[in-house]
């Protein structure tokens, strides 16, 4: 029955593709033809699902990208290299792909038993691809660079589970368009990353037991890695991959990027094709990169973005800008490229408000119970959360001051008229019927297949159609107010939560702005988030790249687990790095059934 349902699900996706291909006629002329890479034919592409033609198209269109020059002495350890640094060294023959892949596999074998960032590691095929890259010395922009791909992206011949019971044995026969573009650009698949089940909450088993840890606190299960692209973030932060991909429906790229000192960009709806990515919703899923800095994010996005006939959401849009050009260092980075004046950064109310000191929560009523899922007693947790809020506001102040010194204009804004209502929890729930419809056959078959994340699927069945339509209309009201009241006065705007811009499909970037030493006793990243107008990802990337030229938060790396103090009873036995699904080597805590708002999806 399960196999039949999977087949029906995939047949529906194929039918959607056929519908999508007919869609441009109803959308008017297609104007978005400026992808940085060639457009691959959609759908099944034959043996292995990969097209040599597509690879040539990428190499031809993007050619040898004008990567920004090295901004620091190149590290001796190849896993310390950024994506752009590795690409440059590989291109120049100063680094071998086998050397790079072997270095990453060694780290995975040594440390992933602790991190549990990967669902599957394809070491054999990765090394074969690396040897081929070294032999051919291809000129595609990512030739020989290993990437980690979130496990909801179709990867031809490699299991794609979305970390769920439903797809636990599913092996697609074609690549998701965005991964196909990266692969055609020369990237090597290192493995599939662990994620929240079906892209909800932070990574756990489908039954809710925590798996992936934050690379900055590998011995503390209660420090969230961010979700649902948890494994993608931990893989990059822990130097087990050069970059990774994620999907964001409710913060799942920007939250894990903030949690682990990465730069992640959630592009505008339609900028990156969703074809071949297991859906959570139709209207809010966004694929994008999680990277070590803005330059790497630009390089990834340049390749992933562009029209795809298999996804009508990617058609009829403005041409893809030159992201790599936007992040190249020059003195004009904080000037608006079209308007010419200083870049205006809008600050919404509350962004710099000092937190109120917490009331004493009292002692733990039952320490044994209260400590489930946490290493620390209640009083200590409360104080640690307060200190973190204080440190976050201080880091935001410092970040804005830095940008102002660099020439940006800081603009204080009011919230749009209906912001509070239309970005509330209730309006965020308008997405839920979409997931219920997508997975209706599986809900009818056996609700137990949804494990710990069942509740929102059930709730989605309960929202009447009239309220769904009204909620969809309300999103247009929100967008209109954001465009008029926010972007009428600024170019980029601060955000403290991803949901508002996820709801209306606008681009967001998450990036590191500082660190604080919390109750773990070692540094934890603090993240910032900016949003922009539709299809203005190049503005976000340009400003954050400039900010990163003036700061070093993005250059800091977490210590290896062996160099940190383990919590009592923790262990980190080695694993050989061969192909496998992540097994547990420690006693994990458990995510709550209803914590999506906090953990992302």
């Amino acid at each position, binding site marked *: 029955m399960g196999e039949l349902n999977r087949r029906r699900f995939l047949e529906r996706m194929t039918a959607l593709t056929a519908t999508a291909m007919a869609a441009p006629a109803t959308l008017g002329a297609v104007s978005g033809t400026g992808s940085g890479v060639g457009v691959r034919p959609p759908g099944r592409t034959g043996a292995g699902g990969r097209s040599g033609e597509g690879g040539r198209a990428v190499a031809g269109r993007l050619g040898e990208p004008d990567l920004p020059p090295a901004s620091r002495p190149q590290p001796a350890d190849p896993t310390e290299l950024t994506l752009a640094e590795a690409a440059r060294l590989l291109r120049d023959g100063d680094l071998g792909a086998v050397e790079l892949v072997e270095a990453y596999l060694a780290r995975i074998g040594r440390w992933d038993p602790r991190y549990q960032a990967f669902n599957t590691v394809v070491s054999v095929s990765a090394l074969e691809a690396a040897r081929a890259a070294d032999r051919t010395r291809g000129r595609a922009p990512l030739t020989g660079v290993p990437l980690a791909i979130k496990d909801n992206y179709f990867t031809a011949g490699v299991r794609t589970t979305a970390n769920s019971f439903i797809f636990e044995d599913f092996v697609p026969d074609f690549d998701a368009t965005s991964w196909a573009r990266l692969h055609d650009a020369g990237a090597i698949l290192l493995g599939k990353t662990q994620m929240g089940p079906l892209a909800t909450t932070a990574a756990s088993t489908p039954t809710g037991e925590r798996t992936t840890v934050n690379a900055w606190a590998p011995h503390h299960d209660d420090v969230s890695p961010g979700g649902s692209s948890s494994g993608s973030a931990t893989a990059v932060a822990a130097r087990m991959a050069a970059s990774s991909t994620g999907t964001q429906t409710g913060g799942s790229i920007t939250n894990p990027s903030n949690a682990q000192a990465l730069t992640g960009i959630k592009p*505008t709806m339609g900028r990156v094709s969703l074809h071949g990515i297991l859906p959570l919703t139709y209207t809010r899923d966004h694929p994008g990169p999680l990277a070590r800095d803005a330059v790497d994010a630009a390089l990834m996005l340049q390749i992933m973005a562009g029209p795809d006939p298999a996804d009508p959401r990617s058609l009829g849009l403005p041409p893809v800008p030159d992201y790599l050009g936007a992040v190249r260092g020059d003195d004009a980075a904080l000037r608006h490229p079209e308007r010419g004046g200083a870049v205006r950064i809008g600050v919404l109310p509350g962004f710099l408000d000092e937190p109120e000191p917490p009331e004493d929560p009292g002692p733990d009523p039952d320490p044994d119970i209260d400590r489930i899922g946490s290493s620390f007693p209640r009083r200590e947790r409360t104080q640690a959360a307060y200190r973190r809020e204080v440190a976050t506001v201080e880091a935001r102040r410092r970040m804005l001051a830095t940008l102002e010194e660099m020439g940006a204009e800081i603009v204080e804004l009011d919230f749009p008229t209906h912001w509070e209502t239309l970005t509330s929890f*209730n309006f965020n729930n308008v997405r839920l019927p979409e997931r219920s419809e997508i997975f209706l056959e599986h809900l009818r078959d056996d609700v137990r297949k949804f494990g710990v994340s069942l509740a929102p699927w059930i709730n989605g069945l309960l929202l009447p159609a009239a309220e769904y339509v009204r909620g969809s209309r309300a999103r247009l009201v929100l967008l209109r107010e954001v465009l008029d009241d926010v972007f009428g006065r600024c170019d980029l705007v601060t955000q403290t939560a991803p949901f508002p811009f996820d709801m209306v499909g606008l681009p967001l970037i998450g990036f590191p702005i500082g660190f604080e030493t919390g109750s773990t006793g070692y540094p934890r990243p603090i993240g910032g988030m900016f949003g922009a107008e539709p299809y203005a990802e190049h503005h976000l990337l340009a400003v954050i790249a400039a900010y990163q030229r003036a700061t070093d938060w993005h250059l800091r790396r977490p210590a290896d687990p062996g160099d940190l103090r383990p919590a009592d009873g923790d262990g980190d036995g080695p694993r050989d790095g061969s192909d496998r699904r992540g097994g547990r080597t420690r006693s994990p805590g458990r995510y709550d059934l209803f914590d999506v708002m906090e953990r992302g999806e």
Partner: protein
Amino acid sequence: MARRPSPPRSAASSQEVTDEQLDAYIRTRLALAGVDLSVLPDDDEDAPADQRRIMASARRFLRSTPGAIADFEFDPMGPAPAIYPAEVSAWNRG
């Protein structure tokens, strides 16, 4: 385009709906959709999901979300529904 949200008429009335009424609605709706919760344990905190927690979540959802959305009122000439707001902005750029 949007009028001010009206007083919480729906939210207030939904508070007056009893658990029993909501349970009947939920079970009827799920039955019509062909979804069976009875395969879950009745009440088991150690299970990934159980009927008690799923039903409690559904009641909370029904008491809050549909009413809050219904309370947001539009002018007659308000926006037609379009489920990809960002794309609408691109298509309208001319």
